[in-house]
Structures are given as C-alpha cells and as structure tokens.
C-alpha cells in the first residue's frame, strides 16, 4: 500500500425528510487500499456510497477524486455518468442488472454511444475475456442474467465496473448472498486486484470479514463517522463498541438436555414453483429445550420449510407430527392450535396488520379465545390491558397501544411479535430470520428471548442466513440446499459452508471438514 490519496469525501451530508442519513462525513481512500465501511443497519453506509456514485445528490459537501495523473479533481455530484468517467465503480447490493439481457449486454450497456447504428461486440467481448482471465472472475457471457446464479450475477456486477477501467471500486454488502467459500474467493480476487493498484471500499456489517480482509475500518453510527481504525489494531469488541456506542450484552447459551420431540417431519415434500421453493423428502426432529438452526444461502427451500411449519404450505407427501400427534391437515389454524408460534421473515408484511392497532395485533392470532371475545364481540378493555402489560414486559416502545402498528420501528415491531408469540407458551417456535435488519441491541434482545423460550421448554426452528447467528444460538445445525436438508455433524464454518454450496453429500461431511481445516 502506498500513501497516494485517490479519493476524499469532504463533509458529505444528506437528509431524507426529517431523517438525517449522513451528517458531515469525511472519508479518505488511498491507492491499493481496502477500506471497510462498517455500521449497523440504517447507519448511513449505503447512502454515503450512493452519493459518491451519483445516485443521490448530497445536501452539502464535496468529493474529490484523483485523475489518471494522480491530481485531485472535484467530482460533479449527482451523476453516475460522471462517477464512472472519474473511474469509480459500484457493485450494488440489490444488483442493478437487466435480467432479460445477456451478461455481455449488461456489461457493455452504457459504454457505447447511443446514436451508433451498429455495435462492435467483438472488441467488447475480447476485452471482457481478458479481464476475466486476469482476475479469475468468470461468467458465461451469452446467458441471460435472469438464468445466472446469485454468485455469477455478482461477478457480472464487478465485471461491469472493471470493464469501465475503474480505479476505485465500491462493494455494497458483497457477501450477503454468498456462501462462505464464495465470499473468500471474492476477497481473494479483490486482494489480487488491489495489488495492481485498485482501491476498494466495501460496506459490511459482518465483523469477521471486515477483520479478515480490510486494511482500515471506518465506522458510521446514526449517519456520522464515529471512528477510524487500522484493522491490525482492531478486534471484534472494539469495533462492535464503536458501531453500537455501548457494550452489547453477551448472550450466554447454557447447555441443556433435549426433551421429547415436539416436531417430527418424516419424508415430507413440499412442491413449490421451482426446486428452490420446494422441499424434497425432508426428515427433521426438533426436541423440547432445543434450538435447531437451519443454515443455507437464501432461496434454497427455507421459505418452503417456513411455510410448512406456519401452515401456509401443504405437504405433498410425508407425515408431520407435532407434540406426538400427527397433523392431519396442515393449515395455519391447525398449526397455531397445535402450539406453533410463528416469527415470520417479513415482519412488516406477514407479521402484523399495519393499519390495526398494536393492541389488536397482539391478540390477532387468538380471536376466538374467551379472554379476547365473548359471543363474537371483542373485549376492548381486556385487549388493551393485555397490550399494556405486554408492551411493558417486552419493552415495546412507540406511540402507545392504541396507535397503528405500522408506526412502530422495525425493532419494536419485532418485539411486539415476540410478545404475541411467547405469551402463548408455544411448544414449537418458528423463528425465520428473526434478527434481520435489527440493530445489535435489538438483535441481542431477540437472541435472549429465544434462549429464554428454550429454557422454558419450547423447541425452536431458527432459520437464518447468518451462519454466525446460527453457530451462536443453535444446539444442532441442519444445512438446507436445493430443497434438501442435511444435518451437519460438525460446527466447523468451512465444512458447513461447503454443505451450503451443495458440494458435500450427506455421507461425507466429516471427511471434507477435515480437509479444509
């Protein structure tokens, strides 16, 4: 790494309505450096990078970029075209790809003059093939992007930037959709490219990869830069503290003896629109006092499994047994009656009715309960009293129990759902991505409540894309890939990662685990 400055953001500020997304942020990047931009959800990382790339117009501040001769030049703001011309490329978290076009067309798009009547794709293809050979990022160029895997789509995004000869590459949460191995390969590729002079900023909230692959870390909190640290001097505690502004309580998991089985799936299949929304011949047992973690890259059958346990998907074959009784008909009502508590993946859409009050949402799954109604009329006072008690117990903050539920923040909506689920003392809890999008304090609260429910005797199915979360909470780990579930007999990240990528058959997990260690 040299000390040549290639980029400097000076006092960038942006507000959306009354929300301050970025407040006077300064940032510098040097040639050949990998800078990690770290912060919680909503800390303003993506907004900052979108201003750099011209998607957003900053309210205040300037950006300077080194030109090819190394002279700092002011960058015209608010124009992706200008950012690209200045050698800045961005790989978006939500890929900016046209799925009806081939990878080649996506990469070349925008680099040709629109008034041209003919295209010179031969030269473009040759250049891309040269880049692919050089960096090891290979994709099939003529396949429509809609038919590529997520990993391949990300490579197309990176190739898009490299094709434009960028000197600065911004990656927004690049590993969110990758298996651990794919992520490692990505960072190896990035490492090789930085040795040739590319400078990289990558956004992440995963402490592990930030510590492993960056040289410097800048931390944002509530839109402000709260610190910068050389990675060599950082550890997880220090940067977690910088991100949250306080120590996060440790969630200690105590060992417990599993009790009787609460959920058994025997050869259960669910047929979805594609293999990726289906389950094939699933066998699974969850015991009382046990958290079963379902690890996998998203879109490998998790939604089919969650739908099955919630009662939304009917199995096409196989037996579902809940607390020693076979479920004759899998419907939402039957599953709730049999003692399933559900924490859905999309809490805004599936977890509540936004237009109804917090109090109503808290009893919405038991409207026939005599505590809630008599002779078909809702007991308003009882419902309100119930909500008052639960919001106090679960620390749900907001404009009051009579207010519409959509006015709550994401963390408080999740607490409202936890209160609704846990108060019914469910035998089985489905927790689908329970901490996604929550800040670290809210996430650790969710983890604490799940462990409490486990201690109280519930069996818990924890579906998460975050392997660290699963390893931290689960007693057993099952890997889901392409609609098939395999129990991981190891807790080794590498071995589980290979299973997530579908590279290991159920019979040889130990063996390849040993190889990669």
């Amino acid at each position, binding site marked *: 790494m040299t000390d040549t400055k290639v980029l400097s953001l000076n006092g960038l500020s942006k507000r959306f309505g009354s929300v301050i997304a970025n407040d006077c942020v300064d940032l510098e990047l040097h040639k050949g450096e990998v800078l990690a931009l770290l912060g919680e959800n909503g800390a303003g990382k993506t907004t900052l990078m979108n201003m750099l790339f011209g998607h*957003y117009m900053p309210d205040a501040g300037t950006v300077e970029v080194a030109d090819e001769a190394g002279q700092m030049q002011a960058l015209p703001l608010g124009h992706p075209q200008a950012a690209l011309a200045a050698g800045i490329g961005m790989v978006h978290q939500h890929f*900016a790809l046209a799925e009806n076009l081939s990878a080649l067309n*996506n990469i*070349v*798009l925008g680099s040709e003059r629109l008034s*041209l009547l*003919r*295209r010179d794709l031969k030269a473009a293809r040759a250049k891309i093939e040269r880049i692919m050979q050089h960096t090891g990022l290979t994709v099939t160029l003529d396949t429509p992007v809609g038919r590529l895997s997520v990993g391949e789509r990300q490579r197309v995004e990176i190739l898009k930037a490299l094709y434009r000869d960028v000197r600065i590459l911004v990656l927004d949460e690049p590993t969110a959709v990758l298996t651990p191995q794919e992520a490692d390969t990505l960072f190896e590729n990035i490492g090789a490219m930085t040795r040739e002079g590319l400078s990289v900023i990558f956004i992440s909230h995963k402490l592990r990869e930030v510590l492993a692959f960056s040289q410097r870390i800048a931390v944002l909190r509530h839109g402000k830069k709260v610190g910068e640290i050389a990675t060599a001097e950082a550890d997880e505690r220090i940067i977690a503290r910088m991100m949250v502004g306080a120590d996060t309580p440790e969630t200690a998991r105590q060992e417990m003896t599993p009790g009787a089985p609460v959920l058994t799936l025997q050869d259960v299949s669910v047929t979805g629109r594609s293999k990726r929304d289906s389950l094939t011949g699933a066998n699974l047992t969850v015991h009382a006092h046990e958290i079963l973690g379902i690890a996998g890259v998203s879109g490998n059958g998790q939604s089919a499994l969650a739908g099955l346990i919630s009662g939304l998907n009917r199995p096409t074959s196989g037996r579902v047994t809940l607390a020693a009784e076979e479920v004759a008909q899998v419907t939402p009502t039957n599953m709730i009656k049999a003692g399933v508590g559900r924490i859905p993946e999309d809490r805004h859409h599936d977890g509540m009715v936004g237009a109804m009050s917090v109090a109503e949402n808290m009893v919405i799954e038991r409207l026939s309960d005599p505590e809630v109604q008599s002779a078909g009329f809702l007991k308003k006072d009882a419902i309100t009293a119930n909500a008052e008690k639960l919001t106090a117990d679960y620390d749900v903050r907001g404009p009051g129990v009579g207010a519409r539920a959509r006015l709550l923040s994401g963390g408080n909506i999740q607490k409202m759902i936890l209160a609704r689920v846990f108060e019914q003392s469910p035998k089985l809890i489905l927790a689908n991505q329970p901490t996604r999008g929550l800040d670290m304090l809210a996430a650790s609260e969710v983890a604490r409540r799940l462990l409490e429910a486990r201690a109280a005797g519930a069996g818990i199915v924890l579906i998460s894309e975050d392997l660290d979360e699963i390893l931290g909470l689960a007693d057993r780990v099952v890997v889901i890939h392409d609609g098939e579930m395999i129990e991981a007999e190891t807790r080794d990240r590498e071995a589980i990662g290979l299973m997530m990528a579908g590279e290991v058959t159920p019979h040889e997990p130990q063996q390849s685990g040993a190889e990669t260690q």
Partner: protein
Amino acid sequence: MMDILNILMSESFWAASLRIATPLIFGVLGALLCEKSGVLNLGIEGIFVTGAMVGWMAVWLGLGLWGGVLAAAVAGAAFGLLHAILTVPLGLSQHVSGLGVTLFATSLSYFTYRTALPTVSSPPKIESFRALDIPVLSDLPFLGPVLFQQTAFTWLALLMVLLVWYVLNRTPLGVAIQAVGDNPDSVDAQGLSVYGLRIGAVVAGSALMALGGAFLTMSAFDSFFFGMVNGRGWICIALVIFASWRPGKALLGALLFGAFDALQVRLQTEVGALVPSQVFIAAPYVLSIVALVIAARRADYPRALLTPWFKGQR
C-alpha cells in the same frame, strides 16, 4: 366447407388480410416500443384517431400524401410526449394517464375537424395512396395482387417491422431500451438516463401508433369520419401480449387478426342468411381473445412495466 377453402385460396382474401392488418402493424409496433421501455400507453386508441384526422387534414390542406404521414407522426409524438411526461418523470398511473390521453386526443381531433369544417354534411374526400404498380412484380400470379398491388403505406408498415426489430436488437439504443424496461436501476447505474430512454421510446412509439390511424384515412379510405378507429387501438394492446413483445410475432399477430376479419366479411356474404351477422363481426375479436389466452400464459412481461422510477430513490 368448400366455401371456406375457396375463400382461403383467393387472392383478394389475402390482399384484404394484409390491408386490414396494416394499421394494426403500426399500432402493435408502437405499443411494443412503449412497453419494452416499461410504459403502458393506453393513449393508443386516441392517438389512432388523431393520426387519422391530422393525416387526412394535412393532405386536404395541400401538404401532399407524405406531408400527411409526417404530420400524423408529429401529432402522435406530441400526445406521446404528454403521456410520457405524466408517467415517467411525474410517475402518475399509466392506466389513468393513458385513458386520459385517449379521451383528450379523440375529443380534440373531433373538435378540430368540426371547427375546421363546420358546414359540410358528407365528409370531403382526398386523393389517397394508390395501389403500387410495379412492372413485372405486380403482374405475378397470386403474389402480385397480394403483395405488390398494396399501397406504399403498407410497405412502410412492413419496413417498420424490420426497423423496430433492428433497433431493439442490434443497436446500443435498443439494448438500453430493453434494459430500462426490465430494471431501470441497471441503466441508471451505467450512467444512462432512465427518463430520456423512456420518454424517447414512448414518443417514438406514439408516432408509430398515429401512422396506424393515418393509414385509415389516407390509404384504406379517403376521408375522415367519426368512430372510424373503432377499437383498433385496443386490439393492438392485446396483440402485443400475443406477440410477447417481439416485432416478428407482432406482424404475425396483426396478420392473423386481419385474416380473421377478412374471412368474416366473406363468410357473411356466403352464409349470411343462416347465421346472424353479429356473430361474424364478433368472430375476430373472440378468436383474438382465444389466441391471447393461449399465448399470454407464457407471456414474458417486461419486468418494470407499469413501475415508475424516480431518481434518487433506490
């Protein structure tokens, strides 16, 4: 049965099919271009009326036939621009804006016609496009009458099929239009203007629609009268889905509809006494719905169709 075979073998039937299909070819291509960029243009029916009126009036005022074609295209482009401004940068409902454009364009065209010609009782005629007479080719058996005795306006429609196909698939502009209709972010992230591409596609598409209307007054007939467009625009909206947004299949769809229509007129004279005439008039529409039901199940809609995009809101 023999009657139908006789009809299908006759030159006049195929010539009529292509003639009936011509305005639809323009309309489907125009709607296709708009929708490929992600904008549904329900202004098509009104833009047909405008094209018919403006094209005819330009010729009547002495601008010549090709002057009329140009005037119709410009008028269509103007209504396209109105629809594009309302739906692209302002992001209003494409359905509401499109229906509004249809009402506005239709009424304004009728109003202009009545204001310009307050006293005439029978519609004035113009010297319309004539059938081509190409030496040798026009005298070929069968192909001559079907293809080479059509008007130049029909040939313009066939040329447009090739042109739209070429632009969409072989030029950087066309690839960008396809991208903006699938995921506007992809275009924005590569430094191209989402608004520019969408507005351009809607304006160009609307100009094509207006040519479909102009064909009616300048080639199929030689005067303008109220109600003459008679739902042809709506048919085009359905045919785009039938064509799965491909210019070649758009031509096929338009020809199929033209053939149904030509067939029903002939059947009506053959067996008209046995079956009520309404059955025949309805037949092409019923058959289009059937064809649509079959084709639309596999339809690959442009993913961003109907979805407005705003700069700075990712």
